[in-house]
């Protein structure tokens, strides 16, 4: 009888439509620029990446982790068995029972999804996502009933035509969401796009506990520098955007969003999806960019993004703190996308806002952002009796001073660090006037041409000398030297050189007994993780070890370690200065005050400047080297 066959026909039909949708969706990604990936290796590695790396992130929320394993695992298993039982009609009861078990697992999971959606937190998107748990439940229930006869629980033909009709509707609703929706842009798209995104991720180094945070260089010979239109992204970046599940974890962590600046990383990724597929953001059912209404954004794969899809202020609000990337369960790369679009604005349009263009022009003309005479770079060290590489040629430790050399507050940090090194008898020298800006700010402001030129010139200088380690007090320079210069280091100027942040280096000195320190006698101390030290380079422990070595028991802020909140100073944000309702530095200082600390220890001159810019009364702010130097036991030689 035809009616008996109806469910099977529906399954096959929806499966086919789903597959057509998926093929169509892949063609949207392929509009992006080519990028080489290892297809086979990626696909083989995918399950491992899913179970280990992705779940490592999801597990921070135990409830959701278990729920997802039950629902997702249950669904994949059920789908395979549904085909076996209901399409290929394999008539073994044991298979049917296995299917029932899988469906039950999924049903339980779906129930917990439903529960979370009863009173969803603000970060979650509503809209079609509210319907998802119901569709999941309908799917599970429908197939449970449909499978009971095959399992021998009910006689074949139970319920007659009426039941089959009802079940067919269930099949349409359930599979409509799960198969049709997967291919045609419903919430379930995340499963399909997410799987492929894990396989073809642009930064495969991130999997298996690795880290990959350096920005990718721009090909300066290209016909468009940076990303103007969605189709200017690499194809696997587009794929990545499509994997977003709109969980809003990025939004909840974003300092710019919290400050009421017009940026919401989740909305940004969704706008990229609108761009790659073409259309408007009218169906977006999550939080907006603060201060901007939803529904007015329009875009297409070949339309300029900043001409209607995303406003320029949105792109310039980001501090490149990577909190969103760190938090994203789908391992989407927000910062890459934002900087790619900034590159277009700076290098093609010449529209870096506020002080941006002045700073870039200064960097180009004087190798420092404030336009000071390059010959005055070493003035700060006039009384420091520091050796210069030009004279020494060979040394154990090269101290990379960074542009803090021009700033009186930062000079205090530099002097403290020099004093510590002297006390530990370190064989150290500086580049002196031969040093140049690391290029960090230029790169984050989208001027990769200037960054590349600085990197090459710095590397050429470094290549003339011999040293075992480079140590710097500036996490931004540290990041460039350690993670971004390698792309331009043709002659191996940094090959075999250990690049260290001063806290790591000082910690080595303290652990080896080269530095003798008294116990700290001040009040409560908290520690602020600089983004470019922590999330960018994974150094959370050395600064804490140092504080502990002074007998300090750190009063941690609620957001610390990999969840540390940015001070607002990164990514050129103080230069582009996009207005919000609050200042990010004020919010961070509130975090610090909430611990009752009297002293905030930091490991970055930029954080020091930002946090000290907060009006008093507030805890004191000191770089770790300044704290250490006060406790230094000076031996008389």
């Amino acid at each position, binding site marked *: 009888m035809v009616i008996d066959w109806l469910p099977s026909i529906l399954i096959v039909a929806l499966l086919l439509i789903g597959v057509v949708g998926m093929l169509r969706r892949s063609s949207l990604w392929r509009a992006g620029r080519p990028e080489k990936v290892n297809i086979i290796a990626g696909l083989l590695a995918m399950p491992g990446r899913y179970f280990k790396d992705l779940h490592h992130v999801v597990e921070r929320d135990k409830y959701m982790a278990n729920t997802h394993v039950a629902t997702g695992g249950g669904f994949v298993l059920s789908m395979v068995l549904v085909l076996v039982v209901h399409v290929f009609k394999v008539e073994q009861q044991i298979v049917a029972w296995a299917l029932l078990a899988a469906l039950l697992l999924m049903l339980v999971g779906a129930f917990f999804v439903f529960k979370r959606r009863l009173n969803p937190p603000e970060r979650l998107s509503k809209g079609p996502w509210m319907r998802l748990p119901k569709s999941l439940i309908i799917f599970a229930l429908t197939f449970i009933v449909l499978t009971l006869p095959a399992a021998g629980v009910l006689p074949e033909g139970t319920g007659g035509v009426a039941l089959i009709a009802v079940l067919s509707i269930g099949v349409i609703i359930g599979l409509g969401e799960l198969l049709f929706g997967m291919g045609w842009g419903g919430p379930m798209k995340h499963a399909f796009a997410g799987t492929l995104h894990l396989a073809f991720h642009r930064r495969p180094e991130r999997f298996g506990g690795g880290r990959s945070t350096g920005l990718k260089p721009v090909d300066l010979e290209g016909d468009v520098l940076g990303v103007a239109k969605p189709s200017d992204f690499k194809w696997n970046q587009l794929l990545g955007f499509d994997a977003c599940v709109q969980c809003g974890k990025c939004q909840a962590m974003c300092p710019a969003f919290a400050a009421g600046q017009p940026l919401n990383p989740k909305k940004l990724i969704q706008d990229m999806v609108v761009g790659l597929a073409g259309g408007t953001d009218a169906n977006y059912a999550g939080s907006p960019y603060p201060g901007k209404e939803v529904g007015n954004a329009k875009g297409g794969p070949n339309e300029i993004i900043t001409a209607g899809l995303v406003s320029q202020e949105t792109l310039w609000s980001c501090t490149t703190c990577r909190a969103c990337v760190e938090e994203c369960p789908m391992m989407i790369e927000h910062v890459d996308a934002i900087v790619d679009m900034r590159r277009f604005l700076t*290098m093609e349009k010449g529209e870096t806002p506020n002080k941006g263009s002045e700073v870039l022009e200064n960097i180009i003309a*004087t190798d420092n952002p404030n336009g000071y005479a390059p010959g005055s770079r070493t003035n700060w060290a006039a009384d420091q009796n520091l050796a210069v590489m030009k004279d020494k040629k060979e040394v154990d430790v090269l101290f990379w001073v960074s542009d803090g050399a021009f700033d009186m507050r930062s000079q205090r940090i530099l002097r403290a660090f020099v004093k510590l090194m002297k006390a530990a008898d370190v064989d150290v020298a500086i580049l002196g006037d031969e040093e140049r800006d690391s290029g960090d700010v230029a790169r984050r402001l989208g001027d990769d041409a200037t960054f590349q030129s600085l990197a090459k010139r710095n590397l050429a200088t470094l290549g003339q000398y011999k040293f075992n380690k480079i140590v710097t007090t500036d996490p931004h320079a540290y990041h460039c030297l350690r993670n971004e210069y390698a792309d331009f280091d043709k002659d191996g100027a940094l090959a075999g050189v250990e690049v260290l942040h001063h806290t790591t280096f000082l910690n080595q000195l303290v652990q080896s007994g080269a530095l003798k320190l008294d116990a700290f006698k001040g009040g409560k101390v908290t520690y602020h993780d600089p983004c470019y030290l922590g999330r960018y380079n994974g150094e959370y422990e050395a600064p804490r070890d140092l504080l502990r070595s002074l007998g300090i028991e750190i009063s941690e802020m609620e957001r610390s370690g990999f969840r540390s909140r940015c001070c607002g100073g990164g990514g050129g944000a103080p230069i582009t200065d996009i207005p919000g309702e609050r200042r990010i530095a004020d919010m961070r200082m509130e975090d610090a005050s909430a611990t009752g600390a009297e002293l905030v220890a930091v490991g970055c001159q930029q954080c020091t400047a930002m946090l000290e810019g907060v009006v008093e009364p507030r805890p004191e702010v000191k770089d770790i080297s300044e704290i250490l130097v006060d406790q230094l036991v000076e031996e008389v030689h």
Partner: protein
Amino acid sequence: MPHKVISLISVGRHPQSGRSRRADQDSRAVELGLKLAGTDLDVVHAGSSEEPVLRQYAGMGLPKVTVLEQAESADALPAISSYLKTQQADIVLTGVRSESGESSGMTPYLLAEQLGWPIVARVADIVEVKDGEAQVLLALPRGQRRQVTVKLPFIASIDNAAEAARQSAFGPGLRAKMEAQSGSTEEDSVRVNWSEAPAKARPKRLKVVKAKTAADRFKAATAKPQGGSGKVMKNESAQEQAQAIFDLLIEEKIIR
């Protein structure tokens, strides 16, 4: 009918680093030119078309730069003036003085002399060009402006008070065409005999302010100097006027 505007550009020099850059006033001349003529603006440089600084100007959105190709030692003036004679330009914009080379500030004057055009010095803005005339704002000290009407064609030297140059974008700068024509071979005989040395800071005359209150000090710092000892010579002969200036220069020990 759109007006033909030409901006002349030179290689500038950063005051702190001494490095080549787009010159401040010249790039303001390009900015004003873009305002008046959009991308029809003709931007002209006498020198080498390989000069990287030209790309910084081009990054302001110029599709092309006209380069009168000539050696560094060659005089820019003959090349530019013979180029301008072929162009039927309405307005030629230059900086007040270049940041490198002789930096005499004479280029606009000599060009005006050779072309027989009027020159307007220290222009802050050109407000309107209509019916063969332009409304020009001249920059005076302390932010003051004077509006004058000038008949086309004319040469204007652009003051630092003019609209600052827009940001230079790397991509368009890289892709702009350098259209080379042959320049002059005439050697700049004055320049050749010069030797360059870093400038010494000129001693500044101390202004003795006997102010008691902050308000007085503020006034003293901002008020227009009341030139008590100055005098206006209108009716005297040129001989007498020149003598008065000469005496003053001696008195001030500027020449001895």
